[in-house]
């Protein structure tokens, strides 16, 4: 796949599926050569991952995208570790996706989603660093006419041990770049790591504090125009008619145009473009979808809860017999809504089109998919297109899609030679998301007379992301990712051992486009399972921790994170007056996560989340300080969703248009998050997403402990809950 010369959009999507376990990269990934490749400033590339400047500056190439999650710093740590370079001299750059294609995908996969940024590239980026170190050492040894085995590298300095002679990476870089890249590249034993595993500071902070950092929305190019857009708010609908006359005469306006099912205004400034767009009278034709509402979608999903046909993904024993014959039967239905990513920076892209080239500037989670979109929309071959990747003002899965890139290129195509920046208003962003899938679940459990869980059935009914976004990744029609956290084995496995079990999915797709939303399907699945576990424990008359522990004895890593939060969270010990606790555990993206939340409830509806103790076992932990920040940040995202966020559908369109009706956590609501990063070694688990799913059920279980009320539909604002 590395040497795929044919870059159809489809092959991009397949190669970079946001879920599905990364690209099968062989150990023989080309690191560059033969012949010296030079960076833009003329400095030599040692391997494709490492450029060394004469002043010893080390430029580490980063293929994945940085959207706040810290992957850029983590990947640089991995390269620097094996390179044995001076960390204080490390800077980073993004090779463009077009260069990657031209160089036979030397940097591998650009896709940044599914918490894969580090775990699926750690092997080859470390090798890229190690190979460069070997070449630098060899070059120094050649210069001294001594065997390389007598030389060691540390901190960007090479020392000839017998004679004590020293030289620096910058001095031997030219000679090293001319050497053959070694074939056999051994990696360090993790116990010898000096930079991996350390809480080093991020490499990309200063410009974010001074206003210098350029995001997609900030791109400025000579002669650039600005565009605002309104796509048909009823998904799948069309423009029936529009009257451009008034807008065309407004200040700064250059063009009012229809792009597929959208109307766009191009003007000198975005403010002019947006103001004029608001003056265009547009009539939409939503077709049959105009009749779709939240109620009609809910009805369709509810029907799925008892439908005959469903895709089965986890089955063992005879769940029906176990439940029918149980001493006690527990049943509950949970409902999870559509949600928008609401990245802080609305979607945008800047494009310039000429008859034989197309270039795009964009914050994207998938540079190669953006390149494919540019090629497809411009009608030009991939080789004539390229993408400059910029820092993302939040991604969370939304920026793995390229709908806005396509729009920007189509607009730029109407104005050849002129760069045009397309920026969505917040309203456009809210109306044209790739929404968190909507899902209902019916859970049924059977307990024996001793209160042991003998049978469990979970019927999911709702949307499949893959069916809409990556149909080629479906498994005979089934979407395995709908079952994240419920898999029989693998990186999203169910960690409870239950003798009789059946988990299936009645796929019910809607016209509202679903997308990968931080955590993907673990947000709802963890709420379903982990709240229900508390319901079962209650029915069994058992402590929620003991009930879980008894089912987890075969999974020591899961048990360890659960015990860690129970211990630090003070489970079983008295809490402060009025404070109640709740637990949750899950496995996703290869990592093991758990949380213990503390809440208090005043006046029956004012919920305060005081503290959440969280644990994660990610196998290896590249940067524990950044992992802590991802844990706390994921809780902000997950709890905002649970308390406050829902996109409802009326007349075929989303009703929420801005933060007044789609609220997000503020600092006053932030609980104290105490993180336990407990890497047990031997595997690489995800960081950005897994922890998000335990905050909500832990808090819900604590709310139950405080009030005796079990909430089963979300967000909680719909139940009159006030989040204080």
């Amino acid at each position, binding site marked *: 796949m590395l040497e795929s010369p044919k870059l159809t959009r489809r092959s991009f999507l397949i190669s970079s599926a946001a879920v599905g376990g990364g690209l099968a990269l062989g150990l023989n990934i080309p690191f560059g050569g033969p012949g010296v490749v030079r960076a833009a400033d003329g400095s030599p590339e040692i391997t494709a991952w490492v450029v060394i400047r004469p002043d010893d500056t080390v430029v580490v190439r980063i293929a994945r995208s940085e959207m706040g999650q810290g992957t850029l710093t983590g990947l640089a740590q991995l390269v620097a570790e094996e390179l044995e370079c001076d960390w204080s001299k490390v800077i980073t750059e993004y090779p463009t996706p077009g260069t990657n294609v031209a160089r036979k995908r030397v940097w591998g996969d650009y896709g940044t989603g599914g918490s894969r940024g580090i775990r699926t590239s750690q092997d080859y980026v470390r090798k890229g660093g190690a190979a460069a170190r070997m070449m630098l050492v060899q070059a120094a040894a050649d210069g001294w006419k001594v065997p390389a085995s007598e030389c060691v590298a540390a901190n960007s300095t090479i020392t000839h041990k017998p004679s004590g002679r020293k030289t620096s990476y910058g001095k031997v870089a030219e000679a090293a770049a001319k050497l053959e890249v070694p074939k056999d590249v051994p990696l360090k034993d993790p116990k010898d790591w000096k930079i991996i595993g350390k809480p080093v500071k991020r490499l990309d902070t200063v410009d974010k504090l001074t*206003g210098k950092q350029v995001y997609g929305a900030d791109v400025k190019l000579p002669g650039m125009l600005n565009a605002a857009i309104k796509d048909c708010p009823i998904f799948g609908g069309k423009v029936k008619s529009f009257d451009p006359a008034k807008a065309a005469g407004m200040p700064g306006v250059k063009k009012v145009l229809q792009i597929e099912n959208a109307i766009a205004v191009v003007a000198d400034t975005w403010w002019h473009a947006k103001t004029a767009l608001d003056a265009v009278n547009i009539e939409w034709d939503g077709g049959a979808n105009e009749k779709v509402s939240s109620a009609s979608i809910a009805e369709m999903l509810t029907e799925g809860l008892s439908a005959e046909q469903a895709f089965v993904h986890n089955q063992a024993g005879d769940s029906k017999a176990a439940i029918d014959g149980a001493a006690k039967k527990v049943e509950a239905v949970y409902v999870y809504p559509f949600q928008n990513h609401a990245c*802080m*920076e609305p979607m945008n892209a800047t494009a310039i089109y000429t008859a034989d080239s197309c270039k795009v500037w964009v914050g994207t989670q998938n540079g190669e998919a953006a390149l494919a979109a540019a090629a497809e929309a411009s009608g030009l071959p991939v080789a004539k297109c390229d993408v400059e990747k910029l820092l993302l003002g939040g991604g969370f899965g939304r920026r793995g899609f390229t709908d806005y890139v396509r729009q920007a290129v189509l607009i730029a195509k109407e104005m050849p030679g002129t760069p045009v920046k397309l920026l969505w208003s917040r309203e456009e962003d809210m109306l044209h998301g790739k929404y968190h899938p909507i899902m209902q679940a019916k859970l049924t459990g059977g307990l024996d007379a001793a209160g042991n869980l003998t049978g469990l059935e979970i019927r999911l009914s709702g949307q499949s992301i893959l069916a809409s976004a990556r149909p080629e990744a479906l498994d005979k029609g089934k979407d395995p990712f709908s079952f994240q956290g419920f898999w029989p084995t693998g990186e999203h496995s169910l960690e409870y051992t239950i003798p009789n079990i059946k988990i299936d999915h009645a796929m019910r797709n809607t016209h509202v486009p679903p997308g990968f939303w931080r955590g993907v399907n673990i947000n709802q699945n963890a709420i379903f399972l982990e709240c229900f576990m508390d319901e079962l424990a209650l029915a069994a008359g058992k402590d929620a921790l003991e009930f879980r522990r008894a089912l987890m004895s075969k999974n020591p890593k899961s048990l360890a994170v659960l015990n860690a939060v129970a211990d630090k969270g003070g489970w079983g010990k008295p809490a402060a007056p009025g404070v109640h606790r709740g637990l949750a555990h899950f496995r996703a993206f290869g990592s093991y996560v758990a949380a213990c939340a503390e809440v208090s409830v005043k006046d029956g509806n004012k919920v305060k989340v005081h503290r959440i103790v969280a644990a994660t076992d990610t196998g290896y932990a590249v940067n524990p300080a950044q992992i802590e920040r991802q844990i706390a940040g994921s809780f902000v*995202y997950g709890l905002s969703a649970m308390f406050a966020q829902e996109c409802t559908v009326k007349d075929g369109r989303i009703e929420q248009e801005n933060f007044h009706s789609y609220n997000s956590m503020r600092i006053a609501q932030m609980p104290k998050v105490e993180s336990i990063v407990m890497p047990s070694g031997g595997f690489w688990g995800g960081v950005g997403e897994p922890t998000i799913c335990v905050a909500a059920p832990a808090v819900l279980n604590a709310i139950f402990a405080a009030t005796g009320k079990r909430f089963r539909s979300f967000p909680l604002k719909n139940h009159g809950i006030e989040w204080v």
Partner: protein
Amino acid sequence: MARLTINGKSQAFDVDPNTPLLWVLREQVGLTGTKYGCGVALCGACTVHVDGAPMRSCVVPVSAVEGKKITTIEGLAVNGRLTKVQQAWLDNDVPQCGYCQSGMIMAVTALLDKSPKPTDAQIDAAITNICRCGTFQQVREAIHAAARA
């Protein structure tokens, strides 16, 4: 025509007086550190100082700030010397994506000008910016660190 004093520099702009200050800053002055997040005073990404007070520039017509002193994120550090808030942000590795942080830093700077040692309750009341990455824990720590500095 609007005459504005931005980061100590007085400049005249040929804009409609109703244009929000945010867009004059970003598109006329070229200061893109001030961000657009919602356009309706809900998120705080566009926060600047007008005569020292924090304001959400997306809803301030440029006509309302003529003759007033406007400070943007670009106007905080003098000759590359970070302010104590910026320094605390750096020391505590606060930003994730960073998109909300200009507004966050401007809001916090104004808070510390008024209340040099804010309590948690004062922070909760004054800082109502949205951060979708969820940096609040580090923001709170950095505010206290800046107050101590």
